[in-house]
Every structure is written in C-alpha cells, then in structure tokens.
C-alpha cells in the first residue's frame, strides 16, 4: 500500500468502531468496504445524486464528499441504523405500502433524507416534501409514490 494509514474512532449506528484508514478514503467507502455496511450506496461521487446520504450527528450529509477521517468522533447513522431489529420502520413500511421504490438503489438515501425531514417537521406539506427530496435523485419512480409515502407519515395520515 502506497499511502499511510491512520486510526479513526467513530460511532456508527450506535456502535463504536476503531478503524485504520487512509486519509483519502471517503466515508462512503469506509462504511461500505471496511465496516461492511453496504446499504449506503454510491451513485455519483460528485455530491449530486444523494444515494450515499447518511446522518452525521443526526443531520443528512453526503458520505461520498466526506473523508472518513472527518467523521472521527462523530455519530454516523446509515440505513442499517434506522432499520429495526425486526421488520421495518414506519417510514420503510410506508415506502413499501406506497410502492415508493423500484430498483432500490436510491432508497436508503431517500429514507434518511425523508426521516430527517419528518423529525424536523412531522407534518410537512407536499411542496416541502418535494423541496426536501430535491437532493436525492431517483430514476425509476418519478417521485410521486415517494412523496405519497412521506406525506402518509403525517399525523393526519396523508391528508392536508
């Protein structure tokens, strides 16, 4: 290996990790290839598509644009971390019920963006949901069923 390594300590999905990384490795690569958390997907490595979205201390970030060393000391949450031990989370269930995914590749990023929105604003209107999802590209669904799934999470059950 041509480059030097350093040791990074970070918390992922509530579990502490101590991992040897190269300073140039992206957080996405470390999550996927060092920690085996392959639910985080890489779609563009240009910070545009949002497939690699994870939470850094509860806020959505692009894990392709962060180096793993930058995540040292922070709490990372991935799709595996918002999935209950048994079954699916209410938002995941809503995606299932509303057919909000097809190929599934953008889905983990969509879930993390949408879940963060709902924690901030439990009753967003449609325009707010669409605005929040603009940073997550989906090529299959045309977004409508994703928007429907997120809206169905409102206390009113989807009605405005």
């Amino acid at each position, binding site marked *: 290996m041509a480059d030097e390594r350093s040791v990074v300590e970070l918390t992922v999905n509530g579990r502490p990790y101590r991992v040897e990384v190269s300073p140039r490795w992206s957080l996405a690569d470390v999550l*996927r290839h060092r920690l085996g958390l392959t639910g985080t*997907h890489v779609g563009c490595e240009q910070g545009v598509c949002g497939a690699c979205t994870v939470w850094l201390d509860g806020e959505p970030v692009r894990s392709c644009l962060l180096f793993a060393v930058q995540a040292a000391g922070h709490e990372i949450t991935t799709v595996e971390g918002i*999935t209950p031990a048994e079954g699916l989370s209410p938002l995941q269930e809503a995606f299932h019920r509303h057919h909000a995914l097809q*190929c*599934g*590749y953008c889905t983990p990023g969509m879930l993390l963006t949408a879940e963060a929105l709902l924690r901030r604003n439990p009753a967003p209107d449609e325009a707010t949901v669409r605005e929040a999802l603009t940073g997550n590209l989906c*090529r299959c669904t045309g977004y*409508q069923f994703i928007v429907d799934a997120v809206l169905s999470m409102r206390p009113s059950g989807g009605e405005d």
Partner: protein
Amino acid sequence: MAQAMRPQMMGARVSRVEDPRLLSGQARYLDDIQVPGMLEIAFVRSPHAAADIIYMDLEAARQYPGVYAVLTYDECPVWLWDKATYEVGQPVLAHGEVQYVGQPVVAIVAEDRYVAEDAAELVRIDYRPRTPVLNMRDALHDQPHRVHAHTPNVFFHQEYQTPGFDEAFRQAPHHLSATFRTNRQTAVTIEPRGTAAMIDPASGRLTVYASTQSPHRMREDISRLLDIPEHLVRVVVPEVGGGFGMKANCYPEDIVVARVAQMLRRPVKWVSDRTESLLSDVHGRDDIHDVEVAFDADGRIIAIRDHLMADGGAYPAYPFSGAVGETSLAARVLTGPYDIPHLATVIDCTYSNKTPLGAYRGVWGPIASFIQEGVVDRVARYLGLDPAEVRRRNLIHDDQFPYRNAAGMIYDRGSYRESFEDALALIGYDEFRRQQAMDRQQGRYRGIGISVFVEPTAMASSEAGSVGYESCTIRIEPSGRVTAALGLGPTGQGHETTMAQLIADELGVNLEDIVILHGDTDSAPYGGGTGGSRSGPIGGGAALVAGRQMRERLIKYAAHLLEAGEEDIELGHGEAWVAGVPERSISIRTIAETAYTNVRRIPEGLPIGLEVTARYLPKRPVSFSNGTHVAEVEVDVRTGIVRVVRYAVVNDCGRLINPTIVEGQIQGGVAQGIGAVLLEALNYDENGQLVTTSLLDYLLPESTDVPQMIIQHRETPSDGEGGIKGMGEGSLIASPAAVANAISDALAPFDAFVDTLPVTPDMVLAMVQRKGA
C-alpha cells in the same frame, strides 16, 4: 367455491416481495460483492475524440506497488464485432487508434481502486490527434472524412415507400415541412455499471457477476468472445439498480474483467464511476428527421415523408447499434395511432467520433411520437383547427382492427379513441382552452399538449430479446413450497412479485409460498432477458403456461388421491378439494410429499417429482399497447423556464398484473420524458470532448420538476397468454411529445413550434424573441 377458480392475484395491488431487503439496506448490488483477494480495475480512457496511438509507456504503472497487471490490446485482443452485420467492431482495449473520448485504452489491475487509479495516472500515451467527425449531416457525405477508413460513414441505409406515394403526396392540397431533432441522452441508472468475475475453485468454471438485463446473452457473449465453452461460464446478475436499456449490451469492460479473472486466477471487479458512466454507457437518441406532411383541408393526413438519420457513434454497440433501432423502428411506427395511408422513409445511420449509441428506454419512440404528434399540431395550427379535433379526424377507428399501418405493422385491438377522449376529460380540456385565452390576455402563457401513443411490445426481436420466447421452470418442493425460475433480468420492475402473482393463481397457492429466481444462468432456463417491454407479456406468458401445466399435474394427483374426477377438483390457498365437498381435500404439501417420497402412490403415467419447464413464444410477432398522455405547462416568457403543472395519463396495456407496479412504471417514464424535453443533453464541444461529464452538467429531473399525475387504466386484452401487453416503455414514448406540444401550444402567440429536444430556457427565449422583435 367457484371463486377459487378465478384469478385472485392477477390484477391485485400486491405490495412487492422485493421491498424489505431493498428498504433495509440488505440488498446485494454488484459493488457489494466482496471476496477475499479480490482485485479492482481502473481504465485509462481516451482523452481524444480521434487519434492515432503513437507510443505507450506503461512501465511506471507496472512497477507501482499494489499493481498486479497492466493490460493493453496485446494482452486482451478481443473485438466486440458482429461481422455478419457490421464492417466495424470495437477492440475491447484500443488498438492503434482511439475513436471517441472515454474509449478504454489500458486496464490497470490493482489491490484496490485507489491504487489502480494512482497507477493509471502514471501511464503515458502519445497520441496524434485527427480531425474528429462530429456533425451528422456532414458525416453522411463522408465529411470531413471517414471515421473508419475502409468503410463509409453511412453503415445502415434503408428506403421504403407505400405504392402510389408520390402521386398521393403531390395531389394533396396542403403541405408542411419541419426538421425534428433529439439530442444525445443516456439512461443514467443511479447504480453505475459494473462487472465482477472469478474462477470457481472447485469446478474451474468462470463466474461473472454482471449488472445486465440479459443474463443468458451475456453468458453467450463471454463464451464466444473469450472462447470458453458455454457450460463453463456462469453469469449471475445481482440486484441491479436500474437498466432502462443501457444495461442490455455487452461492454468492453465486461470482457476485460472476465479476461483478467481468467489470466490472474483472482477474483476481480470493476465498477464505473459517474464520469466514466456518462462517457462510456451507451448513449441514446441523437436523431435528425427531415419531415414533410401532406394533408387535406379538413386536416386529414394523407402522407408523411421522412428522412431519418441517427448518429451511431464510433462503433456499433455490441451486439446491436442503437442507431438502427432508433431509426428502423421509428420508420415502422411513425404514423402512430393515426390512419395515414401513405408513408415514405429513407434511413441513414452514420458513424461519428462519439460514444457508441445503444438503447435507452423507448428506443425510437420519443422521436417518432414527437414527429407524429408534432405533425398533427402543425396541421391543426395551419388550418386553424383545434388539435384535439384534428386527432379525432385521423385516429384509427375501432372497426379497423387488426389494423395494418402504412409501414405494414399489424396493430392488435386497443382503445385508441376511448383513451383519447378519457384523457381529455381527465385534464378538463375544454375548460382549459377557455381559461387559456383569458390567461394569455394577462400575459400568462400556459399550454396543453396531447400525445396519443402506440407502443409495440413483446416483439419477436428487441434489444434484450436475443430470442423471441421466454422460459419458466416451476418446481414444487417436497414441502409444497414453490420455486420458479425465469431467464428475465429485472432492474427494478418487480418481477419477483408479478410472476409470483401469476403462478399463485394457476397453482392455487399463497403468494408467500412462492419464490421467483432469476438472473443466474445456472438456475434459470434459457431466456431472452428484460427489455423491449417483453417481460410481462412473454415472461408472464411463460409463467402462466408453466403454471397451467403444473396445475394439471396437481389436479391429476388430487383426483387420484381423493378418488374423484379431475373435472371436479378445485385448487386454492394451498389445498385441492372436490367441488362442493370441501371436507374432501388434500393439501398441496401432501401431494408434493407423495410426488417425491411416497412414489408408489403417484398416479399412473405421471413422473416422479413436481417440476415443469415451459417456453412461451407469442403467436403474434408484436402486441400494441396504447394510450394518451396530456401535459399542461406554464412557460415564463421572461426567463424561458418551463414548468409542467398538470399531467394526465390513460393507459391500456391489456390485462394488468399489478396496477400499482404499472403506475410506478408510468410515473417513472413520464419523469424521464420531462427530463428529455427540459433538461437532459449530452453535449460535445467542437473537439469532440463530452462536456457533460457530471450530474451537475447532465441534469436529471428532481422531485420538484415532476407534477402529480392522474392515471387511469383501460384493459383491452391481447390475444396472447393472459391478455397481457407490455408497458415498460410507453410512458417514455408518449411523454416527450406531450410536454413538447404543450410548450408549442403555450408559445402559439409567438408562432413557435418546438422542434429540438431538450428545449432549454435560452431556446424558449429565442422563440419568444423571434416573434416579439
């Protein structure tokens, strides 16, 4: 108990069985495959559109720590070349010259991708650049020169004309002409392409993990190109993050990866990054059509003449050139749903120094429906008629089915007029027209665009259909649970759900007791794969035929074991029983136990076990879906920004397997159509550099670009198995024309018509200013 005989799953809005693994991050896509000792590849790609390779210095790369091999053409002398069809093939690694920016030249194999890319930067190649061929109209005349010296740039030419065309065209009272153009686009699956390969240590067979739509054809291609007997190659398709036709090809990288696994006897993987994807995934569209139309004073269209041109790029994509599909299919369906008696077409497909052209969802469709619907709107405006009324006057009548169009294609029955009228009602067409007039007085430019479409599906040959049939093996396990395997290559369409729905009805078992296998050539029977809107009608047809054969066998068992007549046996919910006597029943599980372990009780004449393989080849060479899309847009004439505000679809794809899945397909296709009209273009500069190499430059529709859609279904069954027609592409065939026509309608006060896609804001402003000045 008669309800048990009726389909209960077909047509139901079943939630997908695929979803839980995808939602929880457990699905395994290509880049999630990680095997101890796995190496990774980075490609050195051509920075020139056209150049001779003078010299390569690979020493520094070879010596770089962590590098295992550096390959050029010399180490991998393989050509993607269908010599029976084309004069030209592509070496998987450039051989003496490069013909497009992004062409693979050198492959670096290293311990990981970071190291491979470090070493790639150490490769020194001297090129002598040539003048690239970039303009389609010039290329037609071999200007500025031939792309491939030994053969003309026009690699496909075809002419067709209906008898009496010239006279009919000449005698028509009115004529109009226009040139229609679509720019280059590409599929942009959110999961990039990728391939992994390894030698199975036990058997010595080559296993290739491929992100492809057509597993059996990929196996054939690898077997033939690398000269490995087919039974020693296994192709496994993991979860695929979108395909849209782009993953129907065999690519240079696929072959290099397989070759490296063979050479080094190490597992190896390559995954495209986004810049590579935009450079090297097959491009789509890129059509120019010079069109003339002849019509009468009532707006009835008599004849269309079209010179169809498409830029195939530097090499024919393997094993088919998208340019030939774009043009030859467009020529056959150019009259769409209209009864237009005369057609004359001339096709020219040309080479250029651009990325090879392949398939993108709806191949041929966006340009053909853009023309077909654009022509109708031009005729309407010329004659001062309402565009909807001109459509009524030209649409095929119900009593004309089966209808032979001017190019000789046979349309099976559809709901052409009904879906059209329903769609107008859904959007509130008449009310819109009243409102539109008032809006214009206030300086608001809203427009409505209608697109009545036909979608040829389940074609005997299509981009993925290496064969015209599909196969299904159904095995009822000794436990009574069902395993069914098909040769399909789903990329998000939900075949594990829809195929199980069809089989559940036939066998009378519960959906959760069925598992659908696909994408592994070791378990799936030989099939064509997914593409060309064939999986529902042909794959589904195979599932139905295999299901029916298994059902007959279960009935024989039940009749024998229950001592009843076969005609009295009913199946449902995992049981078989005597009609009217539900207590005389036997479970499928008991039947399966008998078939495998209690073989002395097997009815005479039946084989041991419960396994059938059926193949389904539709009787018709094609089945036509149809429908109508209506888009409403608002154009800001000060900024040139177009917003799609309302959208209505009436879709008829025969009998529905799962309406929710069909709606998802439609919504996704409409979003792609909005992208095609407003956003997406691969742009080359004057040196042949692709300047749209990130998703900041190549813009995809976002959630705020796509409106809520209203969707209605009509069901005119095909006469194929299950009455199913295909529907994967119709939404992207229809939507570009609907949105483009809506913009033209909004800009009618400026005498403008959209003739080039995409329509960017500066183009809108130019249309507005042309008249305003």
